């Protein structure tokens, strides 16, 4: 994924809470996040119960939650934290592809979540860019998962043209229209035109709050991934 530049006029650093039960992984995440001047780790805890106590209302902008915690599940914890503070952006971290789990709770969340593979967090530009995008209200999905995705039979995404599917795949990776145009060697207007066709074919209405986010969720819901080589 192309690292997303952090918004320059941010009044204060993005406050990040990290919930990860593996000590090595937790310290690596803390170190990477704290290296960025625009991010600040406010809590780094090892489990769901300590996170419930530590992460108070309005204390966190982005919560990085491991899916498998020693004393609970990061998905359930994310739901709880967002019920308490709907403005928290939740980013799930997992060493295994748990996209099905991620998607199963999307109807319940106040703000769409993001999802990164733990492997991707070792690249600091990916992690920092993803946190910044999530803080800005975007959905960020792990690029390695997106690249492996192919349309599931019988879905609306399977009915997209090859060009439309490529555009949607890059949007799901978190690229801007300009970056998509550069990657596919087409004009930005063509990207916009493709996106309008995609919204229409996926039945995403103009009145929707964020059609781009809905399109990404539809992409994830209607594709499958295989890890066989």
């Amino acid at each position, binding site marked *: 994924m192309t690292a997303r530049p952090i918004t320059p006029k941010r009044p204060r650093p993005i406050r990040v809470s990290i919930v990860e039960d593996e000590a090595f992984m937790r310290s690596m995440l803390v170190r990477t996040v704290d290296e960025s001047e625009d991010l600040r780790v406010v809590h780094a805890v090892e489990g769901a119960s300590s996170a419930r106590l530590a992460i108070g209302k309005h204390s966190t902008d982005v919560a990085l939650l491991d899916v498998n915690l020693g004393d609970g599940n990061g998905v359930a914890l994310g739901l*709880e934290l967002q019920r308490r503070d709907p403005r928290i952006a939740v980013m799930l971290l997992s060493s*295994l592809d*748990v996209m099905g*789990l991620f998607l199963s709770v999307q109807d319940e969340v106040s703000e769409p979540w993001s999802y990164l593979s733990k492997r991707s967090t070792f690249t600091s530009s990916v992690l920092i860019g993803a946190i910044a995008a999530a803080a800005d209200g975007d959905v960020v999905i792990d690029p390695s998962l997106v690249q492996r995705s192919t349309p*599931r039979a019988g879905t609306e995404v399977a009915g997209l043209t090859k060009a439309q599917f490529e555009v949607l795949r890059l949007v799901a990776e978190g690229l801007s229209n300009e970056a998509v145009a550069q990657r596919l060697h087409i004009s930005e207007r063509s990207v916009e035109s493709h996106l309008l066709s995609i919204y229409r074919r996926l039945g995403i209405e103009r009145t929707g709050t964020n059609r781009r986010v809905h399109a990404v969720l539809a992409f994830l819901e209607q594709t499958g991934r*295989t890890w066989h080589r």
Partner: protein
Amino acid sequence: MAQVTTLWETVRGRWPRARIAALVAAINTVAFSALVAEQATEWSSRWETAALLWWVGGLTVVIGAVLIIITIPLCALVASWWIRIIITLLLSAVQSSVRTALLLPATTLERDTHGGLTIWVTGMSGYLLAIATGFLVAALFEREDRERALRRDEEARTREAVSELEREELRVRKIVADRLHGTVQHRLVVVAGGLDQVADRLMAGDDDPAQWAPTLRDWALDLDELREEHVRSLSHSLFPSGADLGTYEAIRALLDRLPPTVATTVDLGPTMKELIRTLRAPLPLQDRLVVIYTTEEAVTNAIKHGGADRVTVRVEALKRGTEWVLDVRIDDNGTGPESEDPPLSGLARHRARAESRGGSLRLERNDEGGGRLHLMLPFVPESPRNDDEILQKQEKFDE
């Protein structure tokens, strides 16, 4: 002949209870006879006291015994309590009349001064009380027996469930151990050996480090596959992904892992949706695991053996009296079973598990000709978790 056999079996089935009823009724009749014999001495009698005692007591016992011998077996033949009451009333009335007719001459009571009615009412009350008490005691014994049988059944089911769990645990342990010692260990050994070789050659300074980049990338991809396919599968065997969140979440996670060539749908019925809305994860974890593993087996069979490329899972909760039953139907568009409810192979252990929990599992053909696995599982909805209480406490703490 068949009717006679059935009748005989019915009587034989009710005989233990009838025997208790007869015994209690007989004891009561003897007591009643002794009481009326003693009271007879207070009558103005035409007879000697001793003769009167034996006549009244003996006659009451004999008539009562005949009444019991006729009434109890007759009542054992019918199931309706109303008919039993009518039989008892009629026969008691007849026997009381006989008793009255035989006793009245021994007394100085006159027929026109209601003397006969007094003797009849006394006899009727005594016999009715004796037989009713017999029936009551027998009914109490029967209830006790029924509850004991229910407890025995429950214990047998629990024993069966425990041994099923033990068998399942052993099976999963064996699978996990085999795969850890097989595929996983082998792949790790290969990658570790390769890394050693690269390190040796780089240290010797023989090779350009850049030339190893594609090989290292290839090994990284190999490890990715090992993690996503094998480690995940092992982890799933021990505990399915999403099972701790809820049935719907775990089924979604399960279907998401199917190859993209398979179209998948999960439909929740309106009652199930409402239960999830109020209780979040209404199904207890043990029942959830039964549903998830059964769904997985059904889906795998549909794709592997039935050649299906479309799978739909429908989940609904039904209320039957005070009991909740989960109704899960897994439909596919594959070849379906050759006959209705065929003998199960891989699904047999899932059926055993469902039955040990009071449920059922049936494989049938759906309207499209594909397969349908129908799981019915009774469950007791779990109360909402105390997350909200925790949050409320936290909010107070924040303030």
